[in-house]
C-alpha cells in the first residue's frame, strides 16, 4: 500500500512548478497582493488614504454599503449586463461565427471587418452611440421613422424624479441603450474566439454527419456546439466576469452621474461604478475602504457565479 503511494507521487511532474514560476511570481505581486491589500482595507474603519491611519478593523464599510440604496441598484444593473446582455451578445457572436464558418470565399475579409470594432476608439464608439440615440436626429429614430414609429426620446429624464412611472420608463429606455451598446461592444472579441474554436473542430465529423443526411441546423446543434463547448464556456465565463466589472460603458453612455439628466438616483450605476465613485472620493476618510468593501463584494459575487457556472457546465464541456 505504502509502496503504491510512493509510485503515485513519482508520477507528478515536478517541473510543473518551474513552468508556473514566472506566472505565479507576477500573479502574486501584481494581483494577489493587491487583492489581499484590498481585502484588508475593506475592514479598516475611517481609513485615511493619505496617511494610512484608521480607527480599527470592523465591518463598518460593509454595513454602510448595504444600507445604501444605490448599491442595490448597482447590483441589479450589473446582473442585467451579466445575464441579459452577455448571453444576447454571445448568441449574436455565435450566430455570426457559424455563418462565417459556413462560407469559404471572403471569410478572411469578413473576419477583418468584424474585428474592426475591437480596435475602434472607445470615445468614437461612445460618441456614435450618443448620436444614434439622439431623439431629434439620431440614427435609431430615423430608422424608426421609416417604419412609421414616432421618435423616441431615448435618454430623457424630464419629470422622472416626480413620477415613478416616468422613472421606470426612462430606466427601461436606458437599459435598452445599454443592452445595444454592450452587445455591440463585446461581439468582435467573441467572434474571434468562437472562430478560433470552430477552426479547431475536425472537419471529419461534419463529413460523417453530412453523409448521413443530417441538416445543417442539426449538425450545428448536435456536433458543432458540443464540440465548441470548451470555447463557449471560456467565452461565457470570461464575459460574465468582464460584465461584472462593467464601468466604462455606462460612463460613456450616461455620464458620470449614471443616468439621464434629471436623475439623481444613479439609475444606471454598476458595481464597479459604485466602487469608482467611492474611490474618486479618495480624500474623504473611509472612502477607499468603502470602495474596497464594494470590490470584495463584487469578487464574492463573481466567484459565486463562476463556481455555479463551472458546476453547471462541467458535464457539458467536451475535451476530445
Amino acid at each position, binding site marked *: 500500500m505504502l509502496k503504491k503511494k510512493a509510485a503515485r507521487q513519482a508520477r507528478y511532474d515536478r517541473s*510543473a512548478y518551474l*513552468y508556473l514560476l514566472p*506566472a505565479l511570481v507576477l500573479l502574486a505581486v501584481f494581483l494577489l497582493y493587491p487583492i489581499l491589500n484590498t481585502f484588508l482595507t475593506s475592514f479598516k474603519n475611517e481609513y485615511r488614504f493619505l496617511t494610512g491611519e484608521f480607527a480599527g478593523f470592523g465591518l463598518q464599510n460593509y454595513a454602510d454599503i448595504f444600507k445604501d440604496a444605490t448599491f442595490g441598484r448597482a447590483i441589479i444593473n450589473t446582473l442585467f449586463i451579466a445575464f441579459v446582455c452577455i448571453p444576447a451578445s454571445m448568441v449574436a457572436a455565435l450566430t455570426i461565427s457559424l455563418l462565417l464558418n459556413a462560407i469559404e470565399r471572403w471569410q478572411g475579409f469578413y473576419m477583418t471587418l468584424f474585428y474592426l470594432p475591437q480596435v*475602434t476608439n472607445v470615445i468614437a*464608439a461612445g460618441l456614435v452611440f450618443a448620436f444614434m440615440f439622439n431623439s431629434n436626429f439620431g*440614427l435609431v429614430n430615423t430608422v424608426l421613422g421609416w417604419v412609421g414609429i414616432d421618435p423616441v426620446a431615448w435618454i430623457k429624464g424630464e419629470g422622472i424624479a416626480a413620477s415613478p412611472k416616468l422613472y421606470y420608463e426612462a430606466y427601461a429606455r436606458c437599459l435598452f441603450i445599454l443592452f445595444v451598446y454592450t452587445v455591440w461592444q463585446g461581439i468582435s472579441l467573441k467572434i474571434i474566439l468562437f472562430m478560433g474554436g470552430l477552426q479547431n473542430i475536425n472537419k471529419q465529423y461534419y463529413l460523417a454527419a453530412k453523409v448521413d443526411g443530417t441538416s445543417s441546423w442539426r449538425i450545428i446543434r448536435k456536433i458543432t456546439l458540443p464540440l465548441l463547448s470548451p470555447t463557449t464556456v471560456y467565452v461565457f465565463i470570461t464575459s460574465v466576469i468582464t460584465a461584472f466589472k462593467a464601468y466604462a460603458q455606462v460612463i460613456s453612455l450616461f455620464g458620470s452621474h449614471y443616468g439621464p439628466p434629471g436623475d439623481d438616483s444613479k439609475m444606471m450605476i454598476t458595481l464597479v461604478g459604485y466602487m469608482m465613485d467611492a474611490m474618486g472620493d479618495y480624500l474623504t476618510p473611509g472612502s477607499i475602504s468603502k470602495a474596497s468593501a464594494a470590490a470584495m463584494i463584487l469578487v464574492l459575487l463573481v*466567484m459565486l457565479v463562476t463556481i455555479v457556472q463551472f458546476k453547471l457546465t462541467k458535464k457539458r464541456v467536451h475535451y476530445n
Partner: protein
Amino acid sequence: MKTQFARKFAVYLLLTIAVSLMLVPFYWMINTSLKSSVELLRTPPTMIPAELRFQNFLDALIKAPFLRYLSNTVFVAIAVVAVSTAVTVLAAFAFARLRFRGKTLLFFAVLGTMMVPQEMLIITNFMTVSKLGWMNSWQALIVPYCINPFNIYLLRQTFKQVPDELYLVSRVDGVSHFRYLQKVVLPLSKSSIVTTMILSTIWIWDSYAWPNLITTDDGKRLVSNGLQNAFTSDTGRIQYELQMAAATMVIVPLVLFFLLLRKYILSGMDKGGLKG
C-alpha cells in the same frame, strides 16, 4: 442547386448586414476625423464630410508628439506580448497538461484574480512599483501587464484540446515537456496564441489609467494618454475631429497587426494525424 445558391446568398446577406451594423462606430470615427471643426458642430451631423479635411491628421500629429507616443506604445506592446506570451504559455501548459500538487487550487487562484476589478488593484500596484523604484520606467509600463489570467485560461483551454496521444507518444519517445510544448503544442495552438497576442496588444493600446499614473515624463507616454490629454482644452471641450484623426492613426498599426496575424486565427488546430 437553386436552394444551395439561395442559402449561400442568404448567408452573405446576413453577414453583410451584421458587418454594416458593427461598423457604424468605425465609420463614424473616420467620418469625424475628416470633418472640419465647423462642420463637426452642424446639426444634424453630416453623414459624409462636405469637404475631406486630411489636414486634421497633420494637425493631430503636430498637436502632440504622436509618433513618439506611438513608438513608445509599440515598444511596450512588443515587450509585453513577448514576455506575457512566454509567461502565459508556460503556465497554461502546466495547467493543461502537467500533473502536480495543488493544481486545482492554483488554477482557481488564477481564475479568482480575473474577478477583481483592475481599478482596485492600481492603488496597491502603484505602491509596489514606487517601492521598487520603477516610477517613470519602462518596467513599470511592461511588467504588470505581463500577467493576464484571462489569457492563461484561454490557452489552457486550447492546450487541453491537443489530442492526448500526441503527448503520450512524445513522452514515450523521451521528448521533454518543454520540447513537446515547443514543437507540438505551440504549432497546433497557433490560433489561440495569436488571439492572446492580439488581446494583449489591444490591452496595452487601450490602457489609460495605469500608464497615466505611472508616467509623469512625457517621453514615456503611451498613445492612449496622448489621445485623452492632447485634445482637451481647459474648459473641458474636446476637439473631436483631431482626437478621431489621432484615434484613426493610432488604430492603423493594430489593424495591420491583426491583418498580419489573421490567417493564424483562421488556421485552427490540425487534427489530421490521428485515427479515431
